[in-house]
């Protein structure tokens, strides 16, 4: 651990006292009352008083000014106790330094800051840079080039992104697109171990950021649409050997379901449901991948991770709930043993991958303290789950939803809307949300000061109009002719502050393009996020008022962070560089005339090419 010579700048422990929030300002936009998208809301429970909501201290320790994992802490709050930059002075932010990553693809990674060094992972070819923050202009300390196989680019589904590294015990851990997990000496950049766990020849790639828990590096695979069977692996942080592997489909022994498995709902109880909820054999190439976020509760000693959508079978060919896809597991980090499971979307029809972030919070629920897990899910609902048991406490739409009619809180089951069931040759219009979900991978932040979750998300619906012919690996096929369209209101994105206590948005900002970046909240009452046009924005955490914005060189889809520099002052950093699934029209140079490219995303992003170009630049800001 670094020795911080500078005194703390007046931060206090979050959640010490319940902060009575000022009532939200006049900027409220009701985003969920939409005439065109009728849905039933699961009855939201009104607590008696405004509860204190805060992450468990064990999963969100006092802020040391560093940023050692993309989600900031195991609770995944993406909240910093630094407050030198606050709502009154943030307007004075200026560029401290910039750095070109040398890769003009989608930059989705969170920079890390440990002691006086910043670490960045680029998209393919997955360079890792260490920048020396103690010297003017933060020169390169070292650069590591893993040289992944170029063929991996043809296997990755949607741009060749990487979501960042993780730091633990003097080492930087990161994944490469072609399926390697690598440990580097944080000081020298020399590789300590390199374990090959994903096989591009079978369609596997890795895009996620690893998480280090109790000396284990947790990694999952991407590639469900290629017929890859999903897994999460724990690698020994010391030497990289695989300690356990938990599959997302198949028999209990493969899924690591044993005597400790106690799901809350009866539908998840029974032997080998990962086999029996599929037609024979279909689970073997059934998807359920894990390319998103993992959280950890040290008190319960549980990790929480989602599972991707079922693939590559179309829904008619896989009658059944298709476990354990599109759900969430709680597992023992030492053995991988499953403790509970809940399925967001049984028998998924719309590619609702269940891999979003889960924020761990402790709160009063109907007068009782509950340990919860809050998750803005791809299928459009903001879920509050009891993280000890997997019980759904509430599920409320946070954007337009009509593909389902709500969540039955008794059975926990999503209620499908048969009117929006798609099928080849069938024309189904205005399905909300799209395959990219009400929110995709882009991670939210939570502030214990306001009790609000800050959700960067999409406002998109889709039309599925018959079929289009295409050709892969020498085989003609028909695809859905999917066209995404802007959701109600015509804005394609939104940045919403969601009040967990009242199950309502406190405020919501419309954005022209999907908000594909992460968010970070601070004790200075400022929330940062980026837009696909390239604006890096600071807004008031309580009201959503825009306080400051800076136009970077390319669209932003990265994860902002904030840290205390060697000089004791607070800095804010973001990688700018458009791409990802939403930005593939620019970074992948897709043809805007091809409306169905990138699974219909191009149709709704045609004008992105007119406002931004590819890039790959780190921006770091500070007060004068």
């Amino acid at each position, binding site marked *: 651990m670094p020795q911080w010579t500078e005194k703390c700048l007046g931060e206090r422990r979050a959640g010490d006292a319940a902060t009575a929030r000022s009532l939200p300002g006049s900027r409220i936009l009701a985003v969920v009352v939409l005439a065109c998208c009728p849905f039933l809301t699961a009855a939201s429970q009104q607590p008696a008083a405004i509860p204190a909501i805060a992450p468990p201290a064990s999963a969100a320790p006092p802020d040391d000014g560093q940023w050692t994992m993309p989600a900031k802490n195991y609770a995944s709050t993406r909240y910093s106790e630094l407050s030198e930059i606050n709502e009154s002075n943030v307007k004075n932010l200026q560029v401290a330094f910039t750095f070109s990553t040398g890769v003009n693809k989608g930059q989705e990674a969170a920079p890390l800051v440990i002691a006086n060094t910043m670490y960045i992972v680029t998209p393919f070819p997955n360079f890792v840079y260490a920048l020396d923050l103690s010297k003017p202009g933060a020169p390169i300390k070292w650069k590591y080039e893993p040289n992944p196989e170029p*063929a991996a*680019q*043809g*296997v990755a*589904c949607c741009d060749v992104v990487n979501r960042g590294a993780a730091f633990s015990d003097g080492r930087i851990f990161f994944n490469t697109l072609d399926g390697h997990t690598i440990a580097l000496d944080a000081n020298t950049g020399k590789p300590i171990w390199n374990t090959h766990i994903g*096989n*591009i*020849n*079978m*369609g596997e790639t890795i895009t996620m950021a690893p998480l280090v828990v109790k000396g284990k590096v947790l990694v999952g695979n991407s590639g*469900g*649409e*290629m*017929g890859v069977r999903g897994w999460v692996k724990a690698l020994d942080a010391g030497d990289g050997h695989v300690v356990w592997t938990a599959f997302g489909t198949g028999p209990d022994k493969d899924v690591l379901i044993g005597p400790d498995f106690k799901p809350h709902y009866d539908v998840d109880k029974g032997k080998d449901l990962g086999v029996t909820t599929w*037609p*024979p*054999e*279909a689970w*073997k*190439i059934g998807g359920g991948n894990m390319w998103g976020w993992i959280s950890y509760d040290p008190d319960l000693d549980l990790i929480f991770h989602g599972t991707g959508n079922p*693939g*590559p*079978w*179309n829904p*008619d*060919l*896989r*009658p059944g709930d298709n476990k354990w896809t599109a759900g969430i597991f709680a597992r023992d980090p030492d053995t991988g043993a499953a403790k509970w499971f809940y399925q967001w979307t049984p028998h998924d029809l719309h*590619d609702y991958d269940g891999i979003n972030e889960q924020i761990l919070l402790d709160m009063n629920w109907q007068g009782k303290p509950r340990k919860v897990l809050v998750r803005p899910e791809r299928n459009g609902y903001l879920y509050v789950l009891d993280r000890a048991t997997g019980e759904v406490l509430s599920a409320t739409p946070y954007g337009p939803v009509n593909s389902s009619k709500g969540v039955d809180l008794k059975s926990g089951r999503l209620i499908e809307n048969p009117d929006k069931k*798609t099928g*080849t*040759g069938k024309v189904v219009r205005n399905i909300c949300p799209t*395959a990219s979900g009400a929110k995709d991978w882009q991670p939210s932040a939570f502030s214990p000061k306001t009790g609000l979750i800050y959700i960067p998300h999409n406002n998109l619906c889709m039309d*599925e109009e*018959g*079929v*289009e*012919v*295409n*050709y*892969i*690996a*020498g*085989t*003609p*096929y*028909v*695809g*859905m002719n*999917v066209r995404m369209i802007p959701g109600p209101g015509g804005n394609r994105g939104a940045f919403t502050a969601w009040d967990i206590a009242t199950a309502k948005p406190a405020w919501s900002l419309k954005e022209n393009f999907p908000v594909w970046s992460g968010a970070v909240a601070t004790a200075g009452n400022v929330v940062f996020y980026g837009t696909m046009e390239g604006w890096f924005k600071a807004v008031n955490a309580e009201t959503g008022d825009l306080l400051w914005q800076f136009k970077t060189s390319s669209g932003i889809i990265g994860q902002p962070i904030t840290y205390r520099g060697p000089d004791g002052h607070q800095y804010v950093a973001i990688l700018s560089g458009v791409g990802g699934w939403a930005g593939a029209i620019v970074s*992948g*140079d*897709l*043809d805007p*005339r*091809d409306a*169905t*490219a990138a*699974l219909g995303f191009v149709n709704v992003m045609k004008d992105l090419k007119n406002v931004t170009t590819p890039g790959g630049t780190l921006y770091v800001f500070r007060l004068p």
Partner: protein
Amino acid sequence: MCSGCPDAFGLSLRRRKAFQRLMAWVAALALLLAAAAAEARELRVCADPNNMPFSNTAGQGFENKIASIVAAELGASLTYTWWAQRRGFVRNTLKAGLCDLVLGTPANVEMLRTTTPYYRSSYVFVTRQDGPDISSFNDPRLRDIRIGVQLIGDDGANSPPVQALGRRGIVGRLVGYPVYGDYSAPNPPARIVEAVAGGEIDLAVVWGPLAGYFAAKQKVPLRIRPVAPRIDGPLLPMVYDISMGVRREDDRLRGEVDAALSKHKTEIDAVLAQYGVPRLDAAGSPVR
């Protein structure tokens, strides 16, 4: 050459004269060669390096052979950009300007300008000769046997036979084979045909050219029948015309390739027959 320079070679005067004459010849020859190079054409083809029977780096696929025929007609040398034919294939090869011609592609596919088709094939049922002789999706026996299907899995996309079986609720005994196969092995798509020969499945529904080529290589005799109906329900064609494709604005090359394909139709038909491609166009060989 620099005739006024100090004589660096230490040559006698006569020898120097001869040397200068030689140099003049060399210069003239270089000019001639440059002119020839300006006229030499290169036909830059985008293709999959490991996708038999269509193409591979050794040039053994029928598309390799047909590409050679087209290149010869154009008076061009043939060069390849190798890239697995998956999502992003066209974007990373043709549209990136690395190559100018995609060999096998359905006619009128959205993202390309396509030539007149050079063959028409169909999805086929592959069975062992001693197995059930099935030629229609409506055959009731399909409900009682193990059926292999090719899975694309490109989010909401699948091969038409998969949809046809799904529509009929014939889902109980399906075995899926991702079209990509194991790309580290030779012939990644061959698995599904080998599974019929090996008795793992009773029937496979496979795209014709793959079936024809790999069926001929099995140790047990296999039967190939084009599927019926040829168009299933709304919008599910089982039969496709196959063309070559260029960039949408590349009319000139499209015209030249078109002319070459039509001029050498007989040779191309012979290549397709040699590889056992089941044909449904008039010129095609009858399906075995």
